[in-house]
């Protein structure tokens, strides 16, 4: 446990994780220079960055369950970075759409936003992440207060759900990949619901005990 602890708390680990988070982008750029983005490179970049957005949302959502289940609380050090990388990849995804795909045809994009539910829900998921990215600093935690900050940052649950629905509604017929993502996000959210229910039951049990104690003391 000592080795694990020193690895997880080393500042170099953070550098390594940061570099790893850039690998999907590096592979994409490398493929671009190797002319390996295929016949429809715009679509390729859209799918690549979209995929990695959902994956980083999932990785971010893994932090808390892994901390608790594997007893490695130090993982918390990486949560902000992972969440911000999810935001980074969704920004790439969104800019690919407005620039390379639609070339700033704003009226057309606006019509799409209102008319096409997969774009509506995807955009909503993206917008929800913006306040989280802005308030990810220590200063904002202090300004908002831990409780309120935590409540705000639960919006990532909605973002992840929106991301999966966006993907599910986008595919034409083969729904295997979006359903796999849905299963993983579903499991991660179900764990949270379970943990919350368990905690509430324990809390009410202790509350009952403490409230009963004086009674038992009197009757004793």
């Amino acid at each position, binding site marked *: 446990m000592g080795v694990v602890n020193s690895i997880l708390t080393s500042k170099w680990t953070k550098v390594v994780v940061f570099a790893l988070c850039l690998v999907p982008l590096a*592979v994409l750029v490398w*493929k*671009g220079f190797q002319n*390996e*983005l*295929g*016949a*429809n*490179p*715009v*679509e390729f*970049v859209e799918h690549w960055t979209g995929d990695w957005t959902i994956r980083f949302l999932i990785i971010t959502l893994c932090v808390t369950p892994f901390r608790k289940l594997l007893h490695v609380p130090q993982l918390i050090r990486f949560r902000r970075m992972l969440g911000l990388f999810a935001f980074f990849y969704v920004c790439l995804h969104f800019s690919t759409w407005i620039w*390379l*795909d*639609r*070339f700033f*045809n704003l009226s*057309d994009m606006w*019509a*799409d936003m209102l*008319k*096409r539910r*997969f774009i509506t829900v995807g955009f909503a998921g993206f917008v929800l992440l913006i306040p989280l990215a802005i308030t990810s600093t220590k200063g904002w935690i202090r300004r908002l207060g831990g409780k309120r900050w935590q409540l705000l940052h639960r919006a990532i649950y909605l973002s992840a759900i929106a991301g999966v629905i966006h993907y599910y509604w*986008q595919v*034409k*017929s*083969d*729904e*295997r990949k979006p359903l796999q993502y849905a299963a993983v996000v579903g499991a991660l959210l179900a764990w949270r619901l379970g943990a919350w229910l368990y905690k509430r039951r324990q809390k009410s049990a202790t509350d009952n005990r403490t409230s009963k104690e004086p009674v038992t003391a009197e009757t004793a």
Partner: protein
Amino acid sequence: MDDKPASKLTYSDITPKGAYTNRRNFLFGMLATGGAVTGWKHFSNWMSGPATGSVPVKLNNVKKGPFSTAEAITPENDVTTYNNFYEFGTGKGDPSRNAKNFRTSPWTVSVEGEVKKPRKLSMDDIMKIAPLEERIYRHRCVEAWSIVVPWIGYSFSALANLVEPTPKAKYVAFESYYDTRQMPEGPSAGIPFPYLEGLRMDEAMHPLTLLCVGMYGETLPNQDGAPVRMVIPWKYGYKSAKSLVKIRFVKNQPPTTWNTATPEWYGFYSNVNPNVNTVRWSQATEHRLGGGIFSRPIPTQIFNGYGDKVASLYSGMDLRKYY
């Protein structure tokens, strides 16, 4: 057919045998559907991108046909590595990888229904119904991308006239090949197979409508619908059914695959129309493949730019209703 001239090359002679008799590749393909190899396959695809398809064979005696566009032809490699052929997988690179060992010889197309002379045609028969022509058509996918392809074939009407449709024939139904042993990805595609398409009789008989046996000077690659397919350039690509095994002249509008699967998105007519948007995508613009990542989207034309030839087929019809 029995009147085959002995001196002439037959279609089975020009089909590369190696393309379908490579047993080791076939066995590896079977293996690759198993779990252990799948992981590696995904990883190597992830790193290397789609593979190029099988090598087709040069077609001789092809004359320049009518209706060709002067626009730049899309690089052949793009047309053979980026395909919608869901029987071979739903990824754009899947057909070029999974159709490598697809058997296209022997091949029979049954032409039947409301006709005086129903026929079972071999590829040799099909190759000599009419002189082969090269026609450079725009091809617009409903997914808002387009290509310019030098197809080889002849007007479908030549085949229709051979079997002599009766006055009862109002529509033509097309059926593509389907076989889960050769197309193990098919059941996961999420749409019913065999793939079905259809045209109204006047659409099928229009001179633009092509029965296609080749492209880029050669026979069709497997992933592009070998050995014989339809090409209807004013309609979205999915109307142009690939790897045809049955052509049926019928009285009533036949069921078509995408229309059956998602009727609100895919109509029977499916004419290219920038003003009528299917639910999923805006059809106002398209990406012409082959232009690179920074190429701008181009405006989509009504009837894919073939309106001067085909708009009259739909006069008086509300194209918003009959999309």
